[in-house]
């Protein structure tokens, strides 16, 4: 028995090391969070645009028309002074109508 006692002590230390390692692994593993995949910037931009699209049903008839005209002008993309001025005018109108809608809502 005297000869085998140190042998058992070695095994005891081995199990102790196993226990400490397993505690460490479990602690680290429980804390871990999944890595987020690297996303395409173009896809992110598309998602951002999609989330900020205004629902047409929320606008009045005139406002919708103005918004569509503005979008068509912008789509053509010709850099002329007239077009820029037209866009600005439409923007101002849109802004004014939007403010009116908000004011009416507050009154309601």
């Amino acid at each position: 028995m005297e000869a085998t006692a140190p042998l058992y002590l070695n095994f005891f230390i081995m199990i102790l090391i196993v226990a400490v390692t397993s505690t460490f692994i479990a602690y680290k593993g429980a804390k871990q969070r999944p890595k987020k995949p690297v996303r395409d910037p173009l896809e992110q931009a598309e998602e951002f645009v999609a989330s900020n699209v205004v629902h047409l049903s929320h606008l009045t008839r005139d406002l919708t028309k103005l918004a569509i005209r503005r979008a068509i002008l912008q789509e053509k993309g010709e850099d002329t002074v007239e077009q820029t001025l037209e866009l600005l005018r439409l923007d101002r109108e849109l802004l004014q109508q939007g403010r009116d809608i908000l004011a009416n809502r507050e009154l309601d």
Partner: protein
Amino acid sequence: MEINLDVLFLAIDSILNYTLFTCSIAFIIFFKLDFKALWKSKDFASNETLSSMTISIVINVVSFFLISFTINSIVSLDIEKNSSACLRYTLQSFMLLGYVYAHIKAHRLLNINMHALPKLCCFFGNILIYIHLIRFADRLVFETNLLSLAYRLSIVSINSLIVLTMIGSLIYLMIATQKLNRKEA
């Protein structure tokens, strides 16, 4: 009437483990298609609970068979009682380390969060290793042999707790998948 505690504990443990095994086989047979679809879509992140629990159940079943096979083979060896115990405790603690590591590694590979159940399994695996450590010291280093009943009780109760939670999670998964199928149909 005298009851042999060893036989009783062994019976409880093996009955629970075989119940888990049969439950999981039934689950795999009835819901095979769902796992196929999940595996094909590779979309583990949106089915986090299902994937996490499935990992846990598979690892539990595999580890039960591995551990019981090794322990039976060591017991059947013709060696001294103390050295057989030493081998058993050491190998079992190493296997439990593998059990905890497999849980963590599988979740890391599929890139998903750990559910509460696998976390509980890891925690109990750790506790089992510490119990083996204390029992080893008690039986072979100090040679007092005071904790034989406590060791048997704790091992069986922890194993049965894990198995019962596993069976509960299987039932939960069955209900959840049935609900999903109904929604799709």
